[in-house]
């Protein structure tokens, strides 16, 4: 027996999240760079650029966390998701300025990362007890 803990297998959902986070990070970084250029030309404030760049860094961090199936990555993503969903839902319901793309991305990723088996893989929850369902094999009763 080796003393090494068993390696965590990466669920497909985590791989998809890595891809989505990288794409989203790239989009935000591009936006940030463009906004920064506008700000340097004096056409706009620097804050949107800084915010986009920060969120791009966050997206890369989420991608790294998801790739390594790390608990902190999952928690970081969920924190970002709560923020993004709250802001975008308020835009829909209160401010009348909906932005559906980030809403769709956040919603899909939340549904990918929250099933119990994915949480177990990320070490957020313990594995549930085994439940024996009914069997279709006539030799088995349960």
């Amino acid at each position: 027996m080796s003393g090494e803990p068993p390696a965590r297998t990466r669920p497909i959902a985590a791989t998809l999240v890595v891809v989505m986070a990288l794409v989203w990070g790239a989009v935000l970084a591009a936006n940030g760079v463009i906004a920064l250029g506008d700000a340097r030309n004096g056409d706009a404030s620097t804050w949107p650029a800084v915010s986009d760049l920060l969120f791009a860094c966050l997206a890369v961090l989420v991608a790294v966390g998801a790739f390594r199936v790390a608990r902190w990555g999952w928690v970081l993503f969920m924190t970002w998701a709560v923020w993004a969903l709250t802001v975008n839902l308020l835009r829909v319901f209160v401010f009348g300025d909906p932005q559906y793309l980030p809403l769709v991305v956040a919603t899909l990723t939340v549904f990918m990362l929250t099933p119990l088996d994915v949480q177990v893989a990320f070490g957020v929850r313990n594995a549930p007890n085994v439940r024996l369902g009914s069997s279709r094999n006539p030799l088995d009763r349960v």
Partner: protein
Amino acid sequence: MSASVAPGIHSTASDLELLREFEPVVRFTHGESFFPMDVEPYVAASSLWVYHPDDRDEQLVAEGSLTMEELVAPRDAAFGSLFYLRFIGPLGLVASARALDEARTLSKKQDNRFRAGVGRLARGGLLPRLMDGLFSLSLFLRGKVPGATAAAAVLKYADLHRQEERYVYHGRVVRQAGWTVCQYWFFYAYNNWRSGFHGVNDHESDWEMISVYLYEDGDRLVPEWAAYASHDFHGADLRRRWDDREDLALIGNHPVVNAGAGSHASYFKPGEYQAEVPIPIPERLASLVDTAGRFWSRTLGQGGEGPTSRRIPFIDFARADGLVIGPGQEKEWEPNVISEETPWASRYRGMWGLYAQDPIAGENAPGGPMYERDGTPRSSWFDPLRFAELDRVPPPPRELETLEAQVADLEARDTELAGQIGAETDELQRLGAGLGGLTGGTHLAAQYERQQERVTEQSQVVSGLLRERAENRALRESVGRRIERARQGRADGPRDHIRNAMEPVSVGQIRFRRTTEFWAAISISGLLVALAAFLLFAPGDVWAALVVLLIAAVVADSVLRSTYARTVNRIAVILALVSAVVIVVEFWKAVAVAVLVGLALFLVYQRLRELRA
């Protein structure tokens, strides 16, 4: 078989001797104001009332005039009427204030103030705390048994106690199915769990009970089980075997009971017990909440109960750091032997305190030892074995003969089955052969079908007999092993019968940091004040503010209670569900197209895989 466990008592002992031999030692929590008492002074200090079905309360006998004879005098009343005692009369504002003040002074003077410590509020999260607040508010609005009544009861009981300091149990011995049961009924003037110990309810009078179950071994009666009426538990979980040193503490032959503060529930171990009280909500709403819970755990694959749990955590403090009553202790018992011949027990079917008309019933006084609140017989009185699920357990000396008789029955049945199986199998084969003879003739189709049905039925008969034989043999083997164990001493371990052991909550679970407890105490009020401020100063943004405040409060709460990951997951899923609805409503055509195209691609993929295979 188990005579070495305890010395027992001679079987010719009188009921009183039996009761005294096994009477319990009861340990109370510091701060307890009420102790087991005789019913007579309580009745003498109470008034007798009847509640009429037309919602009218009528006083029948005034306080000071009620005797035990008056109490049990036959009285007719219409269906739906309820008789009840009233220990504390209605209090005006001045009398209430005076009672509260005097009770506080008395508690200080006796150095008997209860300190809960920190913990209860921080245990339940924001939603249970909100529910707790609403529950308290509902009690305030219902005003069934106000706090001043408890204070007045403390003073009145203290007064009775000063006149005559006695600690009484009402003992009863009953013999049933080979068992001798010593029941110890404890009567308290008041249950002040809510007003005195942050619990769920208050009510006038309180009946609690523990039992000791003995069996006859030669000329001795030997104790085998002790059962305590521990709240929130039932059946076999209420009893502990006499040799169970893990849970059942004994001082000589006296079981040790740890009484809950104010609730007077009986526990085996000292400590703080978390009682989870279901939130009283209408049935339809409850079923909606349950459906949401199932959707959460199964459909969304989240497991557990989800954010829709409808229970409020409360603590029953059974710290055992206060007065101790029992043989050789600080205070000793005065037994009062009762039976079905005791008039107050058998002939008074009313409640032993105020009928508060509380629909949840937690604030109504209990009935007596023999009867429930509605006057129907109490099962723990007329069937004390079933109370602790001992009705199915033979006394130890009878166990072996019972098991051997069972084996003999199983063996006889096995022989019988062997004959039946042979005969029925012959019949099945005869029918099967006949079925074979019908094949080939097109004109015999209807007969073939009938014969086929008979064959199927007969096959089921044979299969059933074979199954019964297999099950009986497995049972016989298992019973045989049990007989072997019983012959060697004990068939079961002392704790084998326990399904849910009542365990006090560990100190680590109870004690949260002071900041957490402080946050728990102010969070709901803080939220309400912040919301009021938004309503006043920024009414246009009140909905946005409500959402943001609520999420911020829940997240802050989870950080302090070290449940951040779980909480943030729950919030994210709830928000994602709302978002999904928004997206589907807004882009239903695109969603439908995506689903259809996805389905088509999946089917093509499946079919192509089949072709390749």
